[in-house]
């Protein structure tokens, strides 16, 4: 099909032809086209179905404000719904489909909704689908969701990549139209660091849509000259296809740059970049957006904004119709008529709501002043309009102008409110602007070209002065001060047909009236009740019209009625851009233990614990179930020796003359008295008296301690200790540094642990039981001179040590330990075996230190020293945390040894119903104990310490099942601690 509506060249490259498909039909266009200009060139007027009533809809605008022409762009996983055809750059092979219809676009089965429209006005869902209540979820909602809506997602992961970037500037200029270009010239020539961002792929703004001259040359030529001057300046960064979508605190702006949306394939490049721009100053030159007028059946394909019609003719050489009528309330609308006539397009009529002399003469057109359009005809595309004077006029395109709204959005992103300007009939920026922001050009109400250019120059000069930069002298470009006379006109009251306000959400004037009647009169309520101004266009063409009609109906002024709050983003930003590279496994960093490579080679199964990837168990040949591996690791460790990488524990180096005193205050128990060369277990409370963390701390020197924290709390404990050090006791002589990543640490546990270590620890350090008893520590050398640290501590309950070496030796250390252990059949063990052994030994861990429990609860109440103050000491004495019925950590064994216990089960006394009233506590950790050959558990139960031997019920109604359990000591293994002292 040829481009029969292409009447000129405009700014497209007609020497080159590209192919695209719309609803699987092949068409052609040219480089420089948007999807909408190419569709119009091919005579396509019907491009979609409306949201609620499934009315036929066409292209309405020529920019990012488009409410109607939303399409699904691309195919497969690349498919993007709700893409505005007006900003989609045409590329060879582009595929687009219309949205929101069943059956072909020309005959939508859901069009029946339109006939039901008398029942579907504002608040319809709220009022109708109230009862029966059960029908909502099962019937109403699915049906509504299926029939209303926009485009559909591919349902596949987004195959594109997105990036994020950071930029700094003295001056950010938003918009490269006439005012933005003028401002950029001044700021650039003055040497300021400038970012000039424009959402279009062709900077220049309305200059390309108009035929006006600047400095006696065409607007297009002036733009080209200006851009070439700016491109020569190193201090100016021109960012095209870049939308500044939000103004945030302290001069931070969000911007989305489209990198490959105009290409057939992104070819490995990031599709879009989300920029965070730090700007000392910002000049908003965002232009203005035209608005419509509400009259009967004003939503038919072929009815467009007058400025858009002009843009298609002038910029793209496409006429949206062969016989065009214009309906306007302002002088600007007349320019559409004259530009069309100059391009040889027939203008059948110009209708002006103002009863004044015609501002221009339009050859061949019937001019009707003081009249309006009351109705239109043509279901799939307009063909006739009916006027208030009963005249009917033939037109296949109706260009409507209700005046222009400055794009004040960015000026309001920090809750600013625009002010109504009566003479220009528009909201202009007002009140307090975000710090460092100024506004120029049409965005500031300077609607004529000459006003826009001079306001760009002036505001740039003022901005530079505020930065103490001397503004360069730049001549204000000359242009005509064309007339922008307007007289507010919102709604054709003679219309008896539905008059649309918001095309995207199918909101009509009647909905505004209903909203008012139903009491939703504040604009924010009006928006929620009618959906006016919601969805992808955020009401750019409809909001002011809607609230003006609300004001009229309520008998209030527009200023009194006000606008809804403007929030970022200005135009839609894909979720993928916000995510950037933080997707999938890159969502957060992966921390690997020092012996990761060794474990990987050994075939370990890994588990994520926080950011860490830890070996969970190490299967060997023939093992088919994880329990086989874990049981073997536990048994072999308890019988001989096992080795585990425990480097993930937090390590905090504490040094200074007051280090001991400092630890006395952050730990509930005493540390200042700890002898050099000794380790002590410590518990830390929060200030509210609840347990925060536990771990061991070693005293390596008089003024040098090394603390360990649990893996999960490493960051939080360090933060807390810095708080204590800086904010509570600023004059203590103590320094902290996190050493978690500096040391690789391995637990070597089991009866043969010492024998194994004697093979790797250099002979000058005796580690026999007398020289290096339980809870000893010291600096040692390993494998012939490698520096290390040795701690005789035990989590497993066995004779055990933890040996530490600088992280770079960690992988080799693991290898060396396993090799040295060959004669003992030493096994590496993972986090599962670690967990089994600590449960067997009755040590508390994360499940027990869950932010709800006290030292007394875990049986360590006496560790909270009353001889000194420490964090949480005072509040831990509160009555409510020290009652007779307090929970106590004890062990549990099933009375039937073949039954498995489950963590999370709640305890009730035998004979009691399993309900909240009878709840006595809960199971925190369970494991299969290969040593006891049955399932065992740790848990909290009221007065547990006094109930040894009692049988209670562990109820697990969620997963089904109740188990009889016996309350036992939590120390299932070696309760006297003989092994670890051996």
């Amino acid at each position, binding site marked *: 099909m040829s481009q029969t509506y292409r009447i000129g060249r405009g700014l497209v490259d007609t020497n080159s032809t590209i192919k695209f498909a719309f609803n699987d039909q092949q068409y052609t266009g040219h480089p420089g086209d948007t999807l909408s200009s190419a569709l119009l060139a091919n005579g396509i007027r019907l491009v979609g179905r409306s949201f609620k009533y499934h009315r036929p809809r066409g292209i309405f605008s020529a920019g990012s404000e488009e409410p109607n022409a939303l399409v699904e762009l691309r195919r497969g996983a690349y498919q993007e719904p709700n893409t505005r055809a007006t900003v989609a750059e045409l590329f060879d092979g582009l595929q687009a489909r219309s949205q929101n219809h069943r059956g072909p676009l020309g005959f939508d089965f859901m069009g029946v909704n339109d006939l039901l429209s008398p029942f579907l006005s504002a608040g319809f869902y709220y009022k109708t689908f109230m009862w029966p209540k059960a029908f909502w979820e099962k019937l109403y909602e699915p049906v509504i969701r299926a029939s209303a809506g926009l485009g559909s997602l591919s349902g596949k992961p987004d195959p594109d990549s997105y990036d994020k970037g950071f930029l700094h500037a003295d001056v950010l200029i938003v918009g490269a139209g006439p005012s933005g270009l003028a401002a950029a010239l001044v700021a650039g020539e003055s040497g300021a660091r400038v970012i000039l961002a424009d959402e279009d792929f062709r900077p220049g703004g309305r200059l390309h849509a108009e035929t006006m001259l600047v400095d006696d040359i065409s607007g297009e030529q002036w733009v080209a000259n200006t851009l070439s001057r700016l491109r020569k300046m190193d201090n100016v960064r021109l960012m095209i296809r870049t939308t500044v979508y939000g103004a945030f*605190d*302290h*001069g*931070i702006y969000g911007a989305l740059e489209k990198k490959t949306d105009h290409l057939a394939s992104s070819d490995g490049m990031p599709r879009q970049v989300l920029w965070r721009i*730090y700007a000392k100053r910002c000049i908003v030159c965002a232009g203005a957006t035209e608005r419509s007028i509400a009259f009967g059946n004003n939503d038919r394909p072929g009815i467009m904004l007058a400025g858009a019609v002009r843009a298609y003719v002038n910029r793209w050489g496409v006429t949206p119709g062969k016989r065009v009528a214009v309906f306007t309330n302002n002088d600007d609308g007349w320019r559409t008529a004259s530009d069309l006539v100059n391009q040889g397009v027939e203008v059948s009529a110009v209708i002006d709501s103002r009863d004044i002399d015609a501002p221009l003469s339009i050859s061949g057109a019937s001019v009707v002043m003081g009249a309006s359009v009351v109705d239109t005809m043509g279901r799939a595309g307009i063909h006739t309009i009916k006027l208030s004077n009963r005249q009917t006029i033939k037109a296949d395109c109706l260009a409507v102008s209700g005046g222009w709204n400055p794009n004040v959005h960015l000026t309001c992103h*920090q809750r600013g409110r625009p002010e109504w300007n009566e003479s220009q009939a528009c909201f202009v920026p007002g009140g307090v602007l975000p*710090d460092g922001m100024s506004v120029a050009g049409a965005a500031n109400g300077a609607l004529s070209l000459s006003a826009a250019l001079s306001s760009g120059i002036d505001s740039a000069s003022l901005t530079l002065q505020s930065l103490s930069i001397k503004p360069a002298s730049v001549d204000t470009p000359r242009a005509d001060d064309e007339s922008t006379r307007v007289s507010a006109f919102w709604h054709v009251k003679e219309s008896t047909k539905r008059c649309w306000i918001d095309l995207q959400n199918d909101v009509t004037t009647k909905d505004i009236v209903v909203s008012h009647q139903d009491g939703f009169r504040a604009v924010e309520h009006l928006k929620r009740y009618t959906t006016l101004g919601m969805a992808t266009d955020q009401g750019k063409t409809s909001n002011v019209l809607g609230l003006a009609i609300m004001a009229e109906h309520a008998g209030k002024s527009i200023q009194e009625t006000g606008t809804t709050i403007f929030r970022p983003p200005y135009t839609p930003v894909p979720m993928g851009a916000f995510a950037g590279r933080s997707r999938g496994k890159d969502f957060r960093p992966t921390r690997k233990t020092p012996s990761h490579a060794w474990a990987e080679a050994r075939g370990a199964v890994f588990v994520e614990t926080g950011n860490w990837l830890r070996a969970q168990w190490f299967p060997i040949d023939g093992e088919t179930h994880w329990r086989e591996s874990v049981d073997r690791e536990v048994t072999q460790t308890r019988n001989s020796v096992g080795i585990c990488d425990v480097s993930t524990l937090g390590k905090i180096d504490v040094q200074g003359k*007051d280090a001991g*005193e400092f630890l006395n205050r952050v730990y509930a128990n005493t540390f200042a008295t700890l002898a050099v060369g000794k380790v002590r277990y410590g518990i830390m409370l929060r*200030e*509210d008296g609840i347990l925060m963390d536990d771990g061991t701390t070693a005293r390596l020197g008089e003024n040098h301690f090394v603390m360990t924290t649990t893996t999960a709390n490493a*960051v939080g404990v360090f*933060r807390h200790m*810095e*708080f204590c050090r*800086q*904010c*509570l*006791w*600023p*004059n*203590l002589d103590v320094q902290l540094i996190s050493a978690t990543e500096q040391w690789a640490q391995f637990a070597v546990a089991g009866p043969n642990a010492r024998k194994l270590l004697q093979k790797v620890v250099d002979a000058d350090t005796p580690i026999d039981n007398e020289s290096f008893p339980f809870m000893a520590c010291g600096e040692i050398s390993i494998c012939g001179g490698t520096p290390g640290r040795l701690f005789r501590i035990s989590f497993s309950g066995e004779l055990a040590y933890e040996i530490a070496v600088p992280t770079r030796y960690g992988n080799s250390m693991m290898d060396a330990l396993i090799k040295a252990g060959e004669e003992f059949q030493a096994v590496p063990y993972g986090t599962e075996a670690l967990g089994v052994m600590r449960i067997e030994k009755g040590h508390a861990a994360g499940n027990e230190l869950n932010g709800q429990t006290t030292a007394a609860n875990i049986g360590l109440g006496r560790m909270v020293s009353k001889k000194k*103050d420490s964090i949480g*000491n*005072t*509040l831990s*004495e*509160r009555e409510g945390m020290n009652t007779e019925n307090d929970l106590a950590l004890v062990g549990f064994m099933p009375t039937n040894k073949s039954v498995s216990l489950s963590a999370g089960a709640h305890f009730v006394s035998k004979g009691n119903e399993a309900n909240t009233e009878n709840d006595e506590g809960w199971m925190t950790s369970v494991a299969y104990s290969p040593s006891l050959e049955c399932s065992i558990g740790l848990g909290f139960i009221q007065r547990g310490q006094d109930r040894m031997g009692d049988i209670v019920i562990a109820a697990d109604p969620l997963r089904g099942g109740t188990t009889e359990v016996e309350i036992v000591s939590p120390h299932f293994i070696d309760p006297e601690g003989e092994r670890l002292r051996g």
Partner: protein
Amino acid sequence: MIIHHPLLGPRDAAEFVYLGDASLINRPDASADDAAEQFYEYQYLRDNVAGEMRELWYHEQGDRSWLVVTRNTLTHEISKVELARDVARANGRDR
């Protein structure tokens, strides 16, 4: 937001961790007769001001300084940034 760190200059708020009311610096004396009452108030009765507020921020992705940031919670305007250690000392906290 941008926080003007007294030692490091302007830093993005994303580098910081927020704690809350700077009154947390004024930890009560545990040896006071009414220590329990004082700790209760210290721990639980903090202001949540609509307007100018002194807050504790921690430069976790930076130099680990705790800062006292005077910020208007309605406008996010930051009028003053101090090292918490200096504030603590000025409040008479010692060792």
